[in-house]
């Protein structure tokens, strides 16, 4: 799977990431936490999108529901917060199953549209149920266990959970299931013809994706101690898709890179101008035009082209 050289790289990166809170000021640690969890959110979106060929256009539903699930269990029940951290993603996965069963009968854009409709329904519900979900205001000041309540603690928690989740996603993509899923992306008819039950395999992708989106939402609760209805809104979903595209939706780490780019750009552009949406929009357009496979995709293409030339010279 990963070469020796690759493994060394990974360990080096992890080491650096572990040292970050000891070197950088609080703001940057917070930023990195946000990048990690949004990266997980985007990567979970890319499982059905880039690797399954499914028009997963409203992924924020699972992210937000996971976050709300965790927040509500913490604030409204006596259960241990650690249990809450597990329940949130599980609720998201359950919602993924339900919505998946409803939507999977359709394909391509129709799937995406039905998902957006269902997701809007969920959003409207959460938005209006003031007494339970806090409605428009959301929920603030959610208490988390002391060990992860500091900004460094939250960061390490996010790092560990994201790292583990990424590892699981990687194993899934390299497994026979992962290859079959990519086959479905490339050619659903062919997949069916070699014996793959296309619908069921896609449904599993949706459930897994929803679980990890919910995990990302839970991480947000830990890092930011709040939830609000915008976490379920369609604009966040489209942002996630753009993160995947920006970084490279056919690569494993592309969405993580895309998330990092967007978080960084937004944060730093807003220090210069309040019109960061304009800048973001222009950057999206440029990427769509010139780098349709995303940044990482472009890098990979370059690498492959050089390799091909080298191969041909032999």
């Amino acid at each position: 799977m990963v070469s020796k050289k690759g493994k060394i790289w990974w360990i080096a990166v992890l080491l650096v990431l572990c040292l970050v809170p000891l070197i950088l000021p609080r703001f940057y640690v917070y930023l990195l936490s946000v990048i990690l969890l949004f990266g997980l959110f985007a990567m979970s979106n890319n499982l059905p999108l880039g690797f399954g060929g499914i028009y997963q256009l409203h992924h924020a539903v699972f992210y937000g529901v996971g976050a709300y699930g965790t927040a509500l269990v913490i604030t409204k029940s006596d259960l241990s917060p650690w249990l809450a951290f597990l329940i949130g993603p599980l609720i998201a996965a359950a919602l993924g199953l339900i919505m998946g069963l409803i939507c999977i009968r359709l394909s391509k854009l129709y799937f995406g549209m039905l998902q957006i409709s269902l997701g809007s329904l969920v959003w409207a519900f959460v938005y209006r149920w003031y007494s339970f979900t806090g409605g428009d205001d959301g929920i603030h000041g959610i208490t988390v266990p002391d060990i992860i309540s500091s900004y460094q603690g939250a960061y390490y928690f996010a790092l560990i959970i994201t790292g583990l989740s990424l590892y699981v996603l990687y194993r899934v993509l390299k497994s026979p299931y992962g290859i079959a899923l990519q086959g479905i992306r490339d050619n659903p008819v062919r997949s069916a013809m070699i014996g793959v039950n296309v619908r069921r395999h896609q449904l599993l992708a949706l459930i897994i994706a929803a679980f990890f989106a919910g995990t990302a939402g839970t991480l947000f609760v830990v890092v930011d101690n709040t939830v609000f209805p915008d976490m379920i809104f369609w604009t966040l979903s489209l942002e996630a898709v753009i993160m995947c595209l920006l970084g490279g939706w056919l690569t494993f780490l592309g969405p993580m890179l895309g998330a990092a780019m967007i978080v960084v750009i937004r944060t730093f552009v807003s220090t210069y101008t309040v019109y960061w949406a304009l800048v973001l929009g222009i950057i999206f357009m440029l990427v769509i035009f010139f780098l349709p496979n995303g940044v990482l995709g472009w890098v990979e293409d370059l690498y492959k082209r050089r390799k091909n030339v080298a191969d041909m010279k032999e």
Partner: protein
Amino acid sequence: MLEVKSLMKSFDGFKAVDNADLDVRKGEIVAVIGPNGAGKTTLFNLITGILKPDSGRVLFKGEDITGLPPHKICRKRISRSFQVVNVFNRLTVFENTQISILSRERHTWNLVTPSSKLAVDETNELLRRVGLYEKRNRVSGALSHGDRKVLEIAMALAGNPEFLILDEPTAGMSPEETTRCIDLIQGLRERYGLTILFCEHDMEIVFRVANRIMVMVRGATIIQGTCQEVRCNAGVQDAYLGGSDVCLM
């Protein structure tokens, strides 16, 4: 082994398949021929479950398989290649073949084991047999057309089928590629006892390879018989030559 009885399929009033009959005996090679638009591919789609017939039946080894979804048809050990090359473009030749084998073994629900460790020998063996071993790490979207058609056949074979359906296997191939393909098909029957159903436009190939021929015109079966019977049939001559007293070829 395979029986098709009075199969019908319309699209918005257009009768694509209009009372088609077919029977293929075990170990035979049967060809379906007919003018363009006669409904050959639609017939294959109906048999393999990609389309559901309006009426009629498809029986395989005595079992009614009419209207079953494609993945279930595959489990009955019926495999198929497509007229327009249908492979997994972004995956390598190796992965294309491997996933077909893994699917046969129902390993596609395995989310844990790295696929690079599974079915490697069998995949390589199959690739050697069809002559694609050297290109196994190439992305299949980058192969030549002929190679991709061979890959398709390899994927169909990976399912360890008893019955193989080939939709215009030599379409778009150069003469050398065509010869290779024909030798491959005939070799398959001899070595593995496969029953083969295919459709073609190249009459030379049809008459050389097929045991029996079924002729389709405008969605209906005109005749099914041996090469000789078909050559001298009036209906066939009408369809192809607009009526003539001379036996074809």
